[in-house]
């Protein structure tokens, strides 16, 4: 089930119209900034559906997510729902506190320029994704937008994954690009068909059987 996200702007909207009430649908994830605003302004939360431990966990999930930098999909798979024992409430609160503290800290801090900050999008498209065949991000994106919706298809028309390493380096990157373009999770993308030999073998060696 696709999680529903509550962002700071949603809370701000509630604050602007003065109701100070926000409805949290089931399976929602609240961003740290939104949670901050909710606490600061004492916004009343109403839960759509029954309120139980699970939905409490759902509130905690985004905080964990932001703290550790893992993606929403991962937390859903290996997070509280799967664990044998639910995470103790104190621990959840501790994580939430840490996230909020860090968020406040960053809010006032001067922005640190990323080394890539000055670069334009075009430059990013020039990133080499397949190193063996020197295939750029742009070429791969073009192939996807032209209708190649599988790794094998992209490989055929761009040569990404056809070099000496046979996609061992670039397959994950191409998967991410494809997943991003199709709006799917990387895990849903079918892998390239593996082809023998795993490593290049001299013709004379192969000929010997």
């Amino acid at each position, binding site marked *: 089930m696709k999680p529903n996200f509550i962002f700071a702007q949603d809370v701000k909207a509630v604050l602007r119209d003065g109701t100070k009430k926000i409805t949290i649908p089931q399976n929602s994830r609240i961003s740290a900034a939104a949670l901050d605003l909710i606490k600061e302004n004492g916004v009343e939360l109403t839960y759509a559906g029954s309120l139980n431990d699970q939905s409490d966990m759902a509130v905690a999930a985004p905080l964990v997510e932001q703290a550790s930098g893992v993606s929403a999909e991962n937390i859903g798979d290996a997070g509280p729902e799967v664990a044998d024992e639910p995470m103790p409430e104190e621990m959840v609160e501790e994580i939430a506190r840490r996230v909020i503290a860090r968020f406040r800290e960053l809010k006032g801090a001067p922005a640190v320029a990323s080394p890539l900050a000055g670069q334009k999008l075009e430059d990013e498209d020039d990133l080499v994704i397949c190193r063996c065949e020197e295939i750029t991000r742009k070429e791969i994106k073009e192939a996807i937008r032209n*209708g190649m919706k599988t790794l094998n298809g992209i490989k055929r028309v761009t040569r990404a994954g056809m070099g*000496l390493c046979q996609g061992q380096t670039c397959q994950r990157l191409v998967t991410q690009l494809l997943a991003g373009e199709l709006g799917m999770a990387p895990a849903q993308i079918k892998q390239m068909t593996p082809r*023998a030999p795993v490593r*290049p*073998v001299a013709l*004379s060696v192969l000929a010997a059987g």
Partner: protein
Amino acid sequence: MVGKADVVIVGGGVMGCALAYNLAKEGLKPVVIERSDIGGEESGANGGGVRQSARNLKEMPLAMESVRLFAQLHEELGMDVEYVRKGNLRLCSTPEDMVNMRKSVENQKAVGLQLELLDRKQVLEINPYVGDGVIGATFCPTDGHANPLLVSYAFFKKAKSLGARFYTQEEVKDIVLKKGRVAAVVTDKQRIETDLVVNAAGMAGRKIANMAGLDFPVKAVFTEALITEALPPLFPQMLGQARGLFYGRQTLHGSFFMGGFVGTEEFIYRDGKPLFNFIGPAISRLVIEYLPVLKDLHVVRTWSGIIDQTSDSIPVLGLTPEVPGFVFCTGFSGHGFGLAPVIGRLMCELIMDCRVSLPINDFCYSRFGKGADHVCACKGNAACTTATALCPNKREWLKNI
């Protein structure tokens, strides 16, 4: 979801894409259904040979026209398909090969092909890298090769820009007939009402024909190929062996494509992949024997493909009187890639006008039922006819759908 279509092409291989391009150019909006990727099966696994030599003589007029069309593809489709027209050497290593080739050269010259038989010295002038065992070769200077991966893609891209619609990862499950005529195509995702369905499904062509109550003798032949690491350009010709043992070329990328046959290809089990592990080594031995200069090169990748081999090794093309609206364009028996541009054009002519500029009678579906010597005079494949009831003013009729 399209609901209705002028034409549904089953199979997004090189034939399906070439036909879709030609139809879209004529203003139709064909729909192409492909179960894997564009050019993802036979069209993406073949050797890329664009040759006329050593073809069935019945295919020769088509092959000659195709060579002419290949030269225009880059310009026409707006994409380089790496077409190289530098000849095809068919290497002989035994005196019997030479005798057979001499005969075959005469036959092919008789239908107008520029072809000659060379001795070893002449072969070395064209390709100095052939092994000591080569005693001669046939040479057709107008043959060549192209990149099969790019040809399907180029046709696909152009067809799409002209209005053709492509559905990949979608499989045709049924062809609905009404009063014996094609009425609709049902896939695993949608139903498309159409009067005209083209069977360009390659190996799955038999399954598709079965859906319309038709059948033709075709079997699966399992074959393998390999590709090496790249070298600077060594030779531009397409290479073959007189008995068809191996074939290969150097791609523009620099790597060497090599395919071959060992005799076990026909023994695959239905819908399975054999676990033979000796085809790769066998190809390697032949490559080293015929091109010793490559022996230290590394093999980067091997792959397999399925050849849709008909009983007489020539394709099935054209309309069928049995099921009006069902068009065959399949059974290319492993040498269809080089014909793709001309087949796309001829099938388009047939669909638009019921008239083809080159006769395709020899490839008609009825030949299987009437014996090998049958000289086809099927209406519809040769000249305009009302046999299919699609015909009078076909173009006008289609516009009214």
